[in-house]
């Protein structure tokens, strides 16, 4: 699983429409390449962090708050599940992601 973290809030607020379209198209090209290579299992991009709700399980009760899990500058923006032979191969795919501007991709193996 490639979990994508970047400065989501400023991207949604400050990116001009044409630049946003170009980035979405670049993600589309990445997905198409991964699909054509046969490694793409699943993927999703997420709506902006302000639309998030967070559910915390505390002493058997669910506490629901507005906003994302972490208050940090960088937020979860989406994910890919890729079927790769090694984590190095997954890292090569991650390096092709068009996240730009100091984004970060966490790669984790899935439990079988």
């Amino acid at each position, binding site marked *: 699983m490639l979990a994508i973290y970047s400065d989501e809030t400023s991207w949604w607020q400050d990116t001009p429409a044409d630049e946003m379209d170009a980035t979405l198209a670049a993600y589309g090209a990445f997905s198409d390449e991964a699909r054509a290579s046969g490694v793409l299992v699943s993927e999703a991009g997420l709506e902006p962090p302000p639309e998030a709700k967070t559910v915390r*399980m505390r002493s058997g009760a669910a506490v629901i708050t507005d906003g994302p899990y972490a208050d940090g500058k960088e937020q979860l923006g989406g994910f890919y599940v890729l079927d790769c032979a090694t984590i190095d191969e997954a890292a090569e795919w991650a390096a092709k992601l068009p996240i730009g501007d100091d984004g970060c991709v966490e790669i984790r193996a899935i439990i079988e």
Partner: protein
Amino acid sequence: MKYLLALFGDESRWGEATPEQQAASMKGWDDFTKATIEAGVHLGGEGLQPSATATTVAIPESGDPIVSDGPFAETKEQLAGYYLLDCKDLDDVLGWAKRIPMAGGTVEVRPVMDYEARGSEAHSNEAGAAR
């Protein structure tokens, strides 16, 4: 509407659990997953191996990507897995999120981007929807 439920928890709890507690926990996850499948809302979901097995790729504004061992955030709670559910509204998905069998854990619920509504033809959710 498709929603991502991102699961965050303290992974050390798993290592400290007895085999019986681990088996009971796995049954809780299996029961939850089966319930989402039977309700027709399940699009996908996976559990992740411990964050010590993570590799992180940082993409700088210029220059080559930087690959390092370990997770993105060095926090007590770590990304533990996810569910991708197709629910009719936020109340519906929050009802599912409350049933996640992760005592002491946290679930971030986010709507999935509708690429068509944003005019992106190149991008589709097909692979996600197929699961």
